[in-house]
């Protein structure tokens, strides 16, 4: 599902730096020295003048992009609500000027953007989580296209994208809905099954089983007694470790379990620990499970501590 995003502009989070500059700069220096040598060999001031103009062109072409890149900004035009780890996430963005944009966090291929023309930017999140912003490298070679200068930008999404985990093989962490560990209160399940009879209240009965009409009729507190439900809800506990990779694996297994249970027609109760605390609720479908698991545990896509430095390092490695 996609939806329109509010116009949020990107902001630079690092310094502009040239990309693959050694060859162009070295080439330009050699060219200009050769030009100057030819000027002195021919004794012609015109050759030197033309060389000076060429130097001016090269300087503008190689330093100009630094200023153009600093002035660029991106805005998100459209972004999806959900995504899945390992699968492409496409965000539609528009740039304030022509540029080349490459998602870094999550990573994706570079895309050339024209000025103010909405363009799809593909990226592939490799972890589940809540993605409230993406980090991209915005590069410009304006005005002559001779050298690229890159600036890392953080682009805030108007609405976070919930990245579901990959779907792995089902795990054995499924427990019956009414099973509970010692010290825990049993989960309060909704009543299901056919009504068999009404009997008097006994200690331990749930207040939700009270049959008020019969109680009023008999003057005694009466409770319903039902047949065993045909699809007894399955309780799936997502106990995710802190390590992001192990957590990712575990979430994938939980996802696989939930999906297989849903595919078998079972009602699934998913128990997760989210930012607001323990959360237990029925999940209706795979997307709902994905959203729950995206929020579960530590958010991988929260503010990375060394975003700018890492982005630059990654750029150098390239």
């Amino acid at each position, binding site marked *: 599902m996609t939806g329109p995003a509010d116009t949020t502009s990107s902001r630079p989070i690092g310094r502009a730096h040239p990309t693959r500059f050694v060859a162009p700069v070295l080439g330009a220096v050699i060219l200009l020295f050769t030009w100057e040598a030819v000027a002195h060999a021919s*004794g012609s001031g*015109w*050759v030197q003048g033309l060389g*000076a103009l*060429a*130097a*001016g062109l090269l300087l503008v072409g190689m330093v100009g992009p630094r200023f153009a890149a600093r002035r660029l900004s991106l805005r998100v035009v459209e972004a999806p609500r959900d995504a899945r780890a390992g699968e492409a996430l496409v965000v539609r963005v528009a740039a304030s000027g*022509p540029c080349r944009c490459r998602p870094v966090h999550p990573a994706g291929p570079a895309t050339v953007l*024209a000025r103010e023309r909405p363009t799809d930017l593909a990226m592939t999140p490799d972890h589940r989580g809540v993605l409230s912003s993406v980090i991209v490298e915005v590069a410009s070679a304006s005005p002559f296209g001779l050298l690229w200068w890159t600036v890392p930008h953080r682009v805030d999404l108007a609405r976070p994208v919930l990245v579901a985990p990959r779907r792995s093989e089902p795990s054995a962490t499924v427990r019956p809905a009414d099973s509970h560990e010692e010290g825990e209160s049993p989960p309060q399940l909704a009543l299901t099954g056919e009504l068999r009879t009404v009997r008097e209240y006994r200690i331990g009965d749930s207040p939700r089983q009270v049959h008020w009409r019969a109680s009023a009729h008999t003057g005694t507190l009466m409770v319903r007694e039902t047949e065993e439900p045909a699809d007894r809800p399955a309780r799936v506990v997502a106990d995710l470790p802190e390590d992001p990779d192990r957590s990712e694996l575990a979430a994938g297994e939980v996802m696989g379990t939930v999906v297989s249970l849903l595919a078998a027609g079972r009602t699934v109760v998913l128990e997760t620990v989210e930012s607001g605390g323990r959360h237990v609720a029925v999940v209706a479908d795979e997307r709902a499970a994905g959203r729950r698991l995206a929020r579960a545990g530590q958010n991988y896509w929260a503010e990375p501590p060394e975003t700018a430095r890492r982005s630059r390092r990654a750029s150098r490695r390239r």
Partner: protein
Amino acid sequence: MSARRRRGGDRPTRDRPSLLEQVRRANAPPPPDDSVLFRVATAAAVLTGILACETVGELSAVTAFSAMAAVVLGMAFSYATRRHPWQWLKVLLALAVIGVFADFVTEILGAAHTGQLTSIEVPLAGLFTWVQVIHAFDVPARRDLLFSIAAAAALVTIAGAQALSSGFLAFVAVWLLATVVGLACSWRSMTGERRPLPAGVLAGCLAVVLVVALSLLVVLPQPRAEQNLTLPAALTSDLPISGSGVVNGSGANADEPAQPGKPGGRIGVGGYIGFDGPLQTADRGALGDQVVMRVRADRPGYFLGMTYDTWTGQSWVQSAADRGATTLAGASPFELPPDPYGGSKISMNVQTFYVAVPLPNLLFATSDPVEVYFPTHSLILGHDGSIRTTVAITPGTVYTVVSADDEQPAAVLAHDGGRLTTSLRAEPEVRAALRLPYAYPRVAALARSIVTRAHAHSTEAKVLALEAWMGRHTAYTTDIPPLLPGQDTVDQFLFVTHKGYCEQISTSLAVMLRTLGIPAREAIGYVPGSFDPLSDLYEIQAKDAHAWVQVYFPHYGWQDFDPTADVPLAPANAGSVLLDAVGHQLAKLPWLPIGTVSTAGVVGYGSLRVERRRRRRPRTWAAQRALRLEQLGARAGARRRSDETLAAYASRLDALGPGLGVAEAAAVLERCAYDPAAPDGPHADPAGSVESALGRLSSLARRRLRR
């Protein structure tokens, strides 16, 4: 599993392609470029380069214009077939390029084998031109067009190596503009941008490029001719000169700037008096600004043409011009006999002369030439050191002279005792340089009194004392009447007028020196003129013809002295002096860079203003008309308040006059501006109420202004 966090490793893994795959990708045809402007700019840069080569003579007109037509045709063909290039054509073009290279190598080797390889620019220009022509038929993509732009820069540079005048600036300007537009189009092509090029950005880029270029030109050392790999020489005519060793004009036409003077009157003299026949000092032709020749020289100096040794009272003549003349046979370069006074030479001075008008058969050079590059089989060396050719010097002639400058410092000359031995006096050259047509008692007395008062004992001191006296007591002007027949130039100058020009000043010094027994003779030639830093050439005009004195030093030979340099200008009225001074100072300013930077600045500023105004202009029709309404209202005397809505403001305007209907127009504009369903533009107001109201408001404003 390792507990290490791999948060930075979220890049999708990519398999490194094989070498073959990398080569295949590198050679894959790039996407075609659809920008017409990019192609036009590229073609303009290439055509400019070819035309520049033709202008400086590196390409024949037929070759150049054929190549230009082929480039245009090729570019059009490439554009038409950019999506489906003809593969077999690539093979043909590759073969053609190989052929052009083979022809280039053959030409170079052939010229080197026959010893005629003086310049590589001409074959290079041909090579680059034909490569451009061939390449123009296969430029489907941006990469190909960028190659054309780079090759165009090479073509313009090759032409620049041979450019001699400031007119080449026009080619540079067009090339620069085409290159900047082409590169900007290249960037837009990379990003798929289809909007028109922003004029402000282009102007800004141009301005920065010019500023950087001028700064570099200021900082970089000027290229000098001595670093030339070859010394140029060329003839454009093989018209023989009649009479061996005789100085003669080319005979090409009657208005040669250096033809013999015709002392019939001041008007119609036609050029410099001298360079053939007597040097008249009684009158002087009106020498113009016509460029006679351009000189590339290591060091500027007085370019000597010839000398005169016999003074008649009003004119100088050469006694026995053929005496001692030596014919130098062989081939270029000609080695001249060494200077007998050589031994303390300073350094070599390479001078290349580019002749612009027909000149006499004299080769000019600074003193003591040692080597001459001139493509003939003989030269004639006069006894005075002048070099004469046996063919006419016509426009386009190029020759190079290497001189061993032997101008001695004053401290060295001061040690020359100046004593002439009897044997030296007997030398014909020295004897002629001491001869006077008659006794100059007043001049001799004056000269003696000057050197006595100056306590000058050496030759050099005497010369300097006389020069100093002339600097104090005489003035330079060309505005004097011609001498009458029988009047002596020196007497008139020293004792009557005290004003004169270079021939009269130098003649007076020579005669005074001769009365003191110091050998002196009249030298004529050209001063360097103005220097063009771009072409690295001194531009010599007809008015740069000059006369000075050569004084004989027994141990150092003939040394140049220019008394005119010490003589101040004759005072005219204060206004003209002031104007002259201002004009002189203004003329010294580097107008080319100033003009270029100023023009770039004006264009840049204008473009920025236009761009800023364009940005500030409201985008929508409704906003534009609302702004217009506010402007007209202000003119009518009711300025809109900041807290006033358009409707309220319109109601206030309606109160200014009956039937204005501004409120109705404001309602249309507000609906158009704020109702998303309402169309924008003039069709939002089918009844034309807005335009009508604006018209009525405009009339009201005019009426109020008239009052």
